[in-house]
């Protein structure tokens, strides 16, 4: 040390400068990344800890989290899809022009004359719609492993908000090509927004409280999509909603850390397959203590959720977790690119407000609603979706049992209850649809019936009523709120899937029933 100091003094300023120049690359690199290639426990920990992008993850990860069969990577896939969508979206913005005159042509230009434009557009479209599927699947995973419990209640709520945002982002993007398909889908959706009018009209309070027209005006600046709608839908799609979803996604991830990481079964024991990590779990704990101790967080919260939990089954995140994440990223990217290479995102004729597509359908993810809407505009458009969202928000607060958190389906009984709900809801829902298709509904029998009766009593509201009653019945029978929630959630998923499939495949021109799309009369 002394020698160095002496040298420093003796050397002239210029040679110091040339030395700095020589080591420039190393010092710049070091100041950015702080660590070299991590090959000690401490270095591995700090590789995560000191990195802005990685520090949202723990320096160590529980083995259970790394099991592919536990998370199925669904949340991560959703996040990577978001990244892909944002990236491809920025590139589409280079050529897209949000004006009624040019929008359609600029999309055609992206398809025809931009290098890789068609595939980029497909990637954006399919990754965006893939998010709906994977966010829903992720939600199902979180639900069935009971991961909305023990301090994670609010994060479940954030997740539901993210689901809504994904829906709205997809919807706003749907209008932008300004072709027949998107135009008429938006007309349908704007009418769905208008649907609270049915109730306010029946109650005679539309004059004072017209929430339907308000939301429609807010979203579309008019009764039908037009010049200004395109502008503001574009603004929502590329600016407002992405900002909001980034913030909520950030909160979602941050809460995972603060709520103690992923859930894991209480009685976790590693199996044979839990071995062979790039860096094996440190049994002796090395420089780290054997039990999680108090850290910085205690200043604010007294105790972190992990304090006193064993760290025996923890492995270093670097590189174990990062390899897993990279693999999922690459898998997602590859799947999206392959799908987009073969399947083109649809584009129809230039939007024509005078010729409706027949059938005019909402985007597929809203078709379940459109089916309900065909029974009652209010119930399908506002009543039932609101009720569903409320139900989803409240699930973690109404079911507070802390038993077997982190285990798929909780236990054997849970599996049975879920299976039972699956079978019952599939059979009954199909039965109701068959009935409604064959025999019609109240208005077909009593043409003079008041609208309010139909609003309240229709296949959609009866079905939702049944789901609620059944769940309450399950709670009474099993004495467990978790089991009731299980039935409720399974039936929600089954309804979404069946109604969406039914309205996509079996509803043709004039919303008539067809066994498949190939049976539609030629138009």
């Amino acid at each position, binding site marked *: 040390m002394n020698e160095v100091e002496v040298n420093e003094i003796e050397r002239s300023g210029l040679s110091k400068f040339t030395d700095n120049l020589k080591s420039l690359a190393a010092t710049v690199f070091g100041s950015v990344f702080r660590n070299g290639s991590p090959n000690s426990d401490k270095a591995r920990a700090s590789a995560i800890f000191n990195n802005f992008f990685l520090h949202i993850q723990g320096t160590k990860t529980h083995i259970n989290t790394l099991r592919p069969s536990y998370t199925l990577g669904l949340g991560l896939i959703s996040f990577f899809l978001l990244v892909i969508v944002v990236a491809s979206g920025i590139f589409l913005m*280079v050529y897209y022009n949000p004006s009624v005159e040019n929008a359609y042509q600029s999309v055609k*230009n992206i398809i025809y*004359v931009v*290098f*890789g434009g068609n595939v980029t557009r497909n990637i954006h479209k399919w990754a965006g719609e893939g998010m709906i599927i994977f966010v829903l699947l992720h939600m199902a995973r979180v639900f069935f492993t009971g991961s909305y419990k023990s301090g994670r209640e609010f994060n479940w709520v954030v997740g539901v908000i993210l689901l809504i945002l994904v829906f709205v982002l997809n919807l706003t993007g749907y209008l932008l090509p300004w072709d027949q398909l998107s135009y008429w889908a938006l007309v349908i959706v704007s009418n769905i927004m208008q649907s609270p009018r049915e109730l306010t009209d029946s109650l005679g309070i539309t004059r004072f409280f017209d929430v339907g027209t308000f939301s429609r005006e807010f979203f579309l600046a008019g009764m039908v999509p037009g010049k200004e709608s395109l502008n503001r839908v574009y603004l929502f799609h590329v600016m407002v909603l992405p900002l909001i979803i980034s913030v909520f996604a950030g909160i979602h991830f941050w809460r995972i850390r603060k709520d103690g990481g992923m859930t894991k079964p209480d009685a976790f024991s590693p199996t044979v397959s839990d071995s062979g990590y*790039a*860096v094996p779990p*440190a049994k002796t704990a090395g420089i780290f203590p054997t039990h999680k101790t108090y850290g910085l967080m205690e200043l604010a919260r007294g105790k972190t959720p992990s304090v006193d939990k064993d760290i025996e089954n923890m492995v270093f995140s670097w590189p174990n977790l990062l390899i897993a994440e990279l693999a999922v990223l*690459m898998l997602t990217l590859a799947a999206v690119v392959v799908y987009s290479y073969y399947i083109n995102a649809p584009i129809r004729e230039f939007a024509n407000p005078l010729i409706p597509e027949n059938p005019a359908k909402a985007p597929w993810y809203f078709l379940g609603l459109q089916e309900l809407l065909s029974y009652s505009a209010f119930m399908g458009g506002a009543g039932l979706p609101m009720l569903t969202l409320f139900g989803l928000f409240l699930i973690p607060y109404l079911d507070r049992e802390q038993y077997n958190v982190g285990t798929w389906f909780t236990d054997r009984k849970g599996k049975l209850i879920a299976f039972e709900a699956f079978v019952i809801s599939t059979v009954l829902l199909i039965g109701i649809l068959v009935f409604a298709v064959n025999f019609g509904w109240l208005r077909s029998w009593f043409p003079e019936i008041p609208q309010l009766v139909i609003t309240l009593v229709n296949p959609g509201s009866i079905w939702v009523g049944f789901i609620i009653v059944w769940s309450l019945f399950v709670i009474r029978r099993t004495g467990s709120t978790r089991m009731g929630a299980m039935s409720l959630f399974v039936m929600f998923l089954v309804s979404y899937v069946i109604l969406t499939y039914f309205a996509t495949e079996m509803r043709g021109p004039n919303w008539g029933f067809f066994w498949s799309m190939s049976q539609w009369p030629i138009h």
Partner: protein
Amino acid sequence: MTSEHQEKETVLSRRDFLATSAFLTATVAGFGIIAGFFRFFKSDVRYEEPSVFKIGKPENFPVGTARKLDDKKVFVFSDDGGFYAISCVCTHLGCIVHTSDNGFTCPCHGSKYNTAGKVISGPAPRSLPWFEITQDVDGSLVVNAGSEVPSGTKVKYS
């Protein structure tokens, strides 16, 4: 963790063919995507006046003509030596020059060119380029603003 253990592990991971090839492919894919993105930004089509354009039959440009074609940003001259076209875009910062007493003057920063387009004063770094003139099958003259010819190249057509 002992140092011996660490060393063994490093050797192991270096030899791990699977890891190496996996990361290598990922890197290749990453660079591929980045390259694709740069290519994506390069627009293949132009929404501007074509650089090759017809200006009319030779008869329309009798000897002594000096005409500025405003929309094409080019001067067309005809003298005893033949036809020639000189760009009217200043080589300094792209303003449009106008004819002055003995040559061209740029209104923006005062660059001056002589009648052949050679810089005589001002900040312009280069002379005004001369463009190729050819004759189309139907007899009309064609200026190719994408193809420069040496200063003083005049062509005769009839």
